[in-house]
């Protein structure tokens, strides 16, 4: 089995344009058509556990008429199904409350970045090679340390995705991208003690993947937690590894969502132009950077993406807007519409949030911190972080920092503060900018005065 030829992107765009062209007088139509092909291979104990191949396609249609919007989607591009979806979207619009700001994007003259996110060599990469890399990854983790007890979810995945947006207001855009990844989960044991670690590598082409790094990450993360204990509750400086910083930034993105701000659902409403963080912190969302995982030339409404500086030297500069939120705020869209595939309606969101890196290495930051906690993983993000109130409380595991160096591992703790205080408490920003499979990149970040709950 191999990734077969996906149809040219021309026909997705042609379909979207055709559907948008059916707009009647006084009506606007947006059609978003997408098609993806995914392959996933999981190995276990030297054998292939599962091999899945999937192709899916669908369309999401928005209809705006009389300041009212309706939406419908279908998991098929068959003409009769598309006709039904359009009819449903039209019907749905009749039930919405009229809203003067509702409307589709219109061409704004901003040129789209020239991004090449598609790699033909992924399509021709043989299944046998994918299998052997997954098996090699599993072997590498098992061989990585005698204390590795079990390896799970060792696998290969790849995806080829293309989409197109067209509107009756003059938007036409299309894009495509490939991604592939290796992932592995390791459990290390020593006596009754079991600890786990996760490793991965992500790229656009098989050549981008670093199997050794994925393996050693999983091994090191699992083994360095062996012997972890539950420390006493205290307040201390926490140092976030890049993965954790990326998670924090993804949460912050929700507070910088222009629609949430307008609807009084962001802790940053009314803070524009004010200092919300330390002068060393500058936060940018830049999907035009082809290195980022979320890179895209167009947003989900078909406008060109752009580099948006959200926090500059600690001062809140701007929010992320799609067309609706921008109009309502009296501003232009920032090209920040995102959508969860063809089933979702567009809304504002970040694709490539980045803290502009500092100059210190992680080791220099440990020395600067002196005594603190290096956080390796967090849990309960969805249950313990509230981007409206700002309350932040997550489960954590990691390694205590003592006298400027990593000391003993700890587990079954929580770390807690508020997002507001954490931004003001940033005391060091690392130089180790890390691209991660997320809408945010990572960098080592030290934050002062965080509560750690243990015994």
């Amino acid at each position, binding site marked *: 089995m191999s990734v077969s030829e996906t149809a040219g992107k021309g026909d997705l765009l042609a379909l979207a344009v055709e559907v948008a062209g059916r707009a009647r007088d006084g009506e606007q139509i947006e059609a978003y058509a997408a098609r993806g092909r995914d392959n996933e291979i999981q190995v276990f104990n030297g054998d292939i556990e*599962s091999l899945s191949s999937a192709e899916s396609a669908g369309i999401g249609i928005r209809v705006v008429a009389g300041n009212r919007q309706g939406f419908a989607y279908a998991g098929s591009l068959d003409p009769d199904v598309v006709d039904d979806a359009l009819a449903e979207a039209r019907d*749905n619009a009749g039930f919405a409350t009229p809203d003067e700001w509702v409307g589709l994007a219109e061409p704004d003259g901003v040129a789209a970045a020239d991004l090449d996110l598609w790699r033909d060599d992924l399509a021709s990469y043989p299944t046998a090679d994918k299998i052997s890399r997954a098996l090699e990854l599993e072997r590498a983790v098992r061989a990585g340390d005698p204390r590795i007890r079990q390896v799970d979810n060792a696998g290969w995945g790849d995806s080829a995705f293309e989409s197109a947006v067209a509107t009756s207001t003059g938007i036409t855009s299309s894009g495509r991208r490939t991604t592939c990844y290796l992932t592995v989960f390791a459990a290390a044991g020593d006596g009754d003690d079991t600890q786990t670690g996760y490793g991965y590598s992500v790229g656009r082409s098989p050549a981008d993947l670093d199997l050794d790094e994925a393996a050693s990450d999983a091994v090191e993360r699992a083994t360095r937690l062996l012997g972890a204990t539950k420390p006493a509750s205290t307040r201390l400086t926490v140092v976030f590894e890049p993965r954790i910083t990326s998670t924090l930034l993804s949460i912050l993105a929700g507070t910088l969502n222009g629609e949430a701000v307008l609807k009084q659902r962001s802790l940053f409403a009314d803070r524009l132009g004010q200092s919300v963080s330390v002068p060393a912190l500058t936060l940018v969302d830049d999907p035009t950077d082809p290195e980022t995982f979320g890179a895209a030339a167009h947003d989900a409404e078909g406008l060109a993406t752009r580099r948006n500086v959200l926090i500059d030297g600690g001062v809140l500069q701007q929010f992320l807007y799609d067309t609706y939120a921008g109009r309502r705020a009296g501003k232009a869209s920032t090209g920040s519409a995102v959508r969860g595939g063809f089933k979702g309606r567009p809304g504002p969101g970040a694709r490539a949030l980045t803290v502009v890196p500092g100059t210190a290495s992680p080791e220099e930051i440990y020395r600067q911190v002196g005594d603190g906690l290096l956080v390796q993983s967090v849990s309960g993000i969805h249950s313990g972080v509230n981007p409206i109130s700002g309350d932040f409380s*997550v489960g954590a595991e990691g390694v205590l920092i003592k006298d400027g160096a990593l000391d003993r591992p700890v587990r079954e703790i929580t770390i807690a503060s508020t997002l507001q205080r954490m931004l003001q408490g940033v005391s060091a920003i690392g130089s180790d900018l890390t691209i991660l499979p997320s809408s945010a990149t990572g960098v080592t970040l030290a934050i002062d005065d965080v509560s750690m709950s243990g015994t």
Partner: protein
Amino acid sequence: MIDGDVVQRVIEGALRSGGDFAEVFAEDRRSSSAQLDDGKIEDLSSGRERGAGIRVVSGETTGFAHTSDLSERGLLEAAKVAAEAARGGGGGVRTVALQRTHPPAPTTVEVAPETVAKAAKVELLRRADEAARATGAAIRQVSAGYGDSRRQILVANSDGVYVTDDQVRTRMSVACVALGDTGMQTGRESVGGTVGFELFSRHQVEELARAAASRALTKLQARPAPSATLPVVIAKGSGGVLFHEACGHGLEADHIAKELSVFAHHMGDTVASPLVTLVDDGTMGPEWGALAVDDEGTPAQRNVLIKDGVLTDYMWDWLRARKEGRPTSGNGRRESYQHLPMVRMTNTYVLGGKDDPDEIVRQTPHGVYVAQLGGGQVNTATGDFVFGTTEAYLIEDGRITEPLRDANLIGNGPEVLRNIDAVGNDFAMGSPGTCGKNGQGVPVGTGQPTLRVSALTVGGTAR
């Protein structure tokens, strides 16, 4: 959805080049939703997805392919891809005799949602908005969501299984934001069931809205939660997620088979306080996780997992049960035809005990009372799990006193199960939930009586 003869030819085709087992899972899913936010009906959404997933198992390897083309040609093509993926050796012609069965539905749907006018669905949202805003001037924002879905499935396999099911779910949720001197606070409440629009003759949307609004208003006075290890009392209904995380996932046979669960090798052992009896029950209509058959065509069952503290069974899907030479427990589920089934929970709950709920609080000198829980997360290999509070209070001198800001609680599954030292004689199921595992979400229910854990770490900021 698909003709029986076609299903049979597709299964036989999937096994033509070998393989031990082949399965067709076809699904036709329609959904509709409506959202009110900021005082406006923002938009209605309708969706339709239809397709089939073909699974071929050969030795230790599972091959899987799916297609949205339900024609015989499309299904045979997917079957070929799945069979190639499973690399079955041997081959030859195998005849499959399908035996159609009709397991009982857990619930009777009285008012099919597709027969209800969209205007009636929208009206529920308006009523909720009005009731929530009338609760207090501090309520600054209200969002309300309505959703229904109808999922028709067909499962057939080379063991002869041939069954269909028609799964209807209806739900509604309200979320409020309140603004006070200390900033903004949120409150949420939701209701749902494997029923149709009659859900709203059993539940008043105004009550739902007022509960969400009161929760946000109460928290305006909340102080930071403690940062300490304390006794925690969990109110009936809301705390089922604790068991879902503390031991539910750890009792799924896939984690057990891979020795990635702290509950592996403990069958017949005492793993919890003798006060704890834990059940997973797919037959429990109209709860959110109820079903007539699971997504492998096995009729739903009531399975006792822990009885009086003793581990009595794990949860099983076809693949894991086959390895152990035992029947599946009806826990093979998948998000959609685009996914492979896995061992999943349905409605998971702890049975009521003997203690008076009020007395449990009175006999707690200092601790935390949790009235509503949010979600949670567990690492089954270490047993460490977290769950978040969305309404909690301090207990001082045996009395529920001040409200607390949201926080996560953290514990270790086996330790927490042993530390349950009081179980109330009340019981309630909680709100509808979505359980995520390996990227797949499925609807689940949870429930429990009022109970106390003698020590849990509360992840607040108050010293």
